[in-house]
């Protein structure tokens, strides 16, 4: 990690800065390709085959196939780009958010209806940015 990242100790949070954007460029551009209906169809038919067309790392490809959004974010994904993947799956932002918090969608929705995650909530500070 480079110095001068005052946001690196914010718990449960990865800031999409220049380093993350560089790491995740091809992952995010793959996501962007899912804006087109014909690409969505091709991806759905053969995920590995479609991913093979992108110069992404093996770890990134595995994270996509596993739909491990926290891992994708760690590997440079940005949530607005990753949204193209769960939209392709017919899933909502609430679905994805719940998944990333490790809650069921029901638990997560209940938390939001009762005012959201409190600022006093204790989350572990991640080890690297």
């Amino acid at each position: 990690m480079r110095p001068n990242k005052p946001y690196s100790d914010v718990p449960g949070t990865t800031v999409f800065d220049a380093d993350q954007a560089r790491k995740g460029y091809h992952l995010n551009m793959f996501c962007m390709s899912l804006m087109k209906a014909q690409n969505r169809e091709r991806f759905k038919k053969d995920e590995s085959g479609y991913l093979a067309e992108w110069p992404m790392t093996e770890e990134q490809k595995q994270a996509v196939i596993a739909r491990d959004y926290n891992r994708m974010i760690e590997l440079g994904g940005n949530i607005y780009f990753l949204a193209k993947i769960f939209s392709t799956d017919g899933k909502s932002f609430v679905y994805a958010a719940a998944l990333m918090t490790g809650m069921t969608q029901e638990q997560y929705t209940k938390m939001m209806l009762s005012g959201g995650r409190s600022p006093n909530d204790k989350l572990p500070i991640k080890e690297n940015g």
Partner: protein
Amino acid sequence: MARITAGVATSHVPAIGAAQDSGKSSEPYWAPLFKGYEFSKHWVAANPPDVVFLVYNDHASAFSLEMIPTFAIGCAERFAPADEGWGPRPIPTISGHPELAAHIAQSVIQQDFDLTIVNRMDVDHGLTVPLSLMFGQPSEWPCRVIPFAVNVIQYPPPSGHRCFQLGKAIRRAINSFDEDLTVHIWGTGGMSHQLQGPRAGFINKEFDRRFLDRLVSDPDALARVPLIDYIREAGSEGIELVMWLIMRGALDSAVREIHRFYHVPASNTAVGHLILENTMLDR
């Protein structure tokens, strides 16, 4: 002469547009939210703008990682609703105001804010949800719109101070346009929310209330809040709130608060809404 008469701030959650488009706005989950905008619909009908200068951010729709303009002004004749991955929203095409937009671009660049000029661009929920909240579901939008996109996706976005100063430059630009036009400036996005990682669902009502108060009555100090404070206290996506400072910078130092609404949640987000009228005391 063109004049900014009022400012509007509102969140722009995509699910709000989806709820409206699919006829769910009177369902128990959504009804309290739409109720908060009933006053606003009447107000805007009674105080109609010729042009809305609409500050928003694109969410990987028109801009990918290929190009990331910090400030981009839409100078086109028209802007189509973007296909965000599930088809474009069923809403009218947005008419721009190319003459005023080009004038603002020239004037603001000459005031040392280096804007990116965009002559072709689709607009996503960041721009269209605020229009739907304020105007409902008309067959044509009742005014022209100048889209003004701000990068808040790749860190760092512009600082609050930069945004506030830019608002002042936009105001000077609009005031120097030689046609009688009533202009509203809207700032959108926010309020506190986080869409990513284990901290998703983060909401900070206390921060939001203080932000609303200070935006109205103490914007100079609010504009000096550093970006890190937004990430910590308003969530990683709450950083969108810097866009509200562009709107506020374009208004008088003293404004009349006409309407305020705050609601949690709209899917993952705290929704905030303000209508501010210029007092004209600065002129």
